[in-house]
């Protein structure tokens, strides 16, 4: 899955809201890349289980 594939699905071509649950490293990378491409038009929700 690439950032380009995700952006191609941005039907509204404006604001994208992502709900992510998976490996932390992947979440960070994906969020960084999407933020660079979408600027302020991204809402990225992720769980952050770090209880230590």
């Amino acid at each position, binding site marked *: *899955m690439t950032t380009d594939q*995700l952006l191609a*699905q*941005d*039907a*509204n071509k*404006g*604001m*994208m*809201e*992502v*709900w*992510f*649950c*998976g*490996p932390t490293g*992947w979440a960070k990378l*994906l969020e960084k890349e999407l933020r660079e491409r979408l600027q302020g038009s991204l*809402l990225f*929700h*992720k*769980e*952050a*289980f*770090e*209880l*230590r």
Partner: protein
Amino acid sequence: MNTSPMASLPWEIYDNSLYLSGLLAIALMSVTMMLATRPTWLEAPLNGLDKMYLLHKWTGILAVVFAALHWLIEMGDDVIKSLFGRDGRLPEEDFSGFIEMMRDAAEDIGEWAVYLVFAMLVLTLWKRFPYNIWRYVHRVMPVLYLLLAFHAVLLAPLVWWQQPIGLLMGLLLIGGSVAGIVSLRGVIGQSLQVKGSIHAISTTAPGITEVECQLDKKWQGHSAGQFAFVTFNRIEGAHPFTIASADHGDGQVTFKIKALGDYTKRLDHKLKVGQLVTVEGPYGRFNFKPKKPTATQIWIAGGIGVTPFLARLEELKNQPEQSTMVQMHYATHDSATDPFVKRLQQACISLSHIQLHIHDSNADKK
């Protein structure tokens, strides 16, 4: 903050640095203690308990950094003395008898408590230190906090208590101390704890155990995407797991647990049907409620991260009016053997507004 207006500049800088670092350390420690009590009213502003715990971790780390700075400054007074002499320093506040004795004790206690807090930070950041031991060691933190609060109350400049800074510090110390006592009494999250028993156990895929629990009527229900702290064994304590089922109002909740750590690797051998469980929750704000209804909704799941999405898909079957268009992506190593692929495909059949995309990393490599 000005504690010694007639001191020479080096001593003025020294005193203010000492008090400022101490103030920041105890203020952040107080916030850390209060966050540790899992206050549900803070879930909304902080976007969930998981984020609250991240904040707890970072306020704790920053508190120890400022405590280290405070200790270094305290130890550095000999350097100022040798460079600028003792003359520019204002005499210490004059106490006598019992108060002076308590202040001396507070100084010694503060020093030793700080050493232990440093050690605790090292254990916390040292990920190889076993979690099941760490969680017991970490329970000493409220005691260390109360000792440091005693140090702060007795050694803060008297003039502070007549200023807004004293009011702020007083509120933080009261909040932190109450949180410390709540923690020591072991009643954190008690109002959200519900008893129940294991209804069914199955292995849905290699290394993934599905545990279905029947909870008491006290269970208030949950939204898809929320998680709970589950205690299967009192010695092991509570562990957070995402609830993988939708809420049907009957107290049944399912957890899909992947063997990732020491505890979860041994779990399937330890559980049996009928075993008592305690579930605390629900917590979290990963609830799929669009913050911007006009935005394109994209769901991305990797491996066991699929659990909140399974719960949401199950929930949507009962809520046909929720028809926002969603692009769902699921990443797996091998779609042919991954049981979640079939589950997702079945769940999406009747949900025309969910477009499912499966990403198979093995297939991509071929």
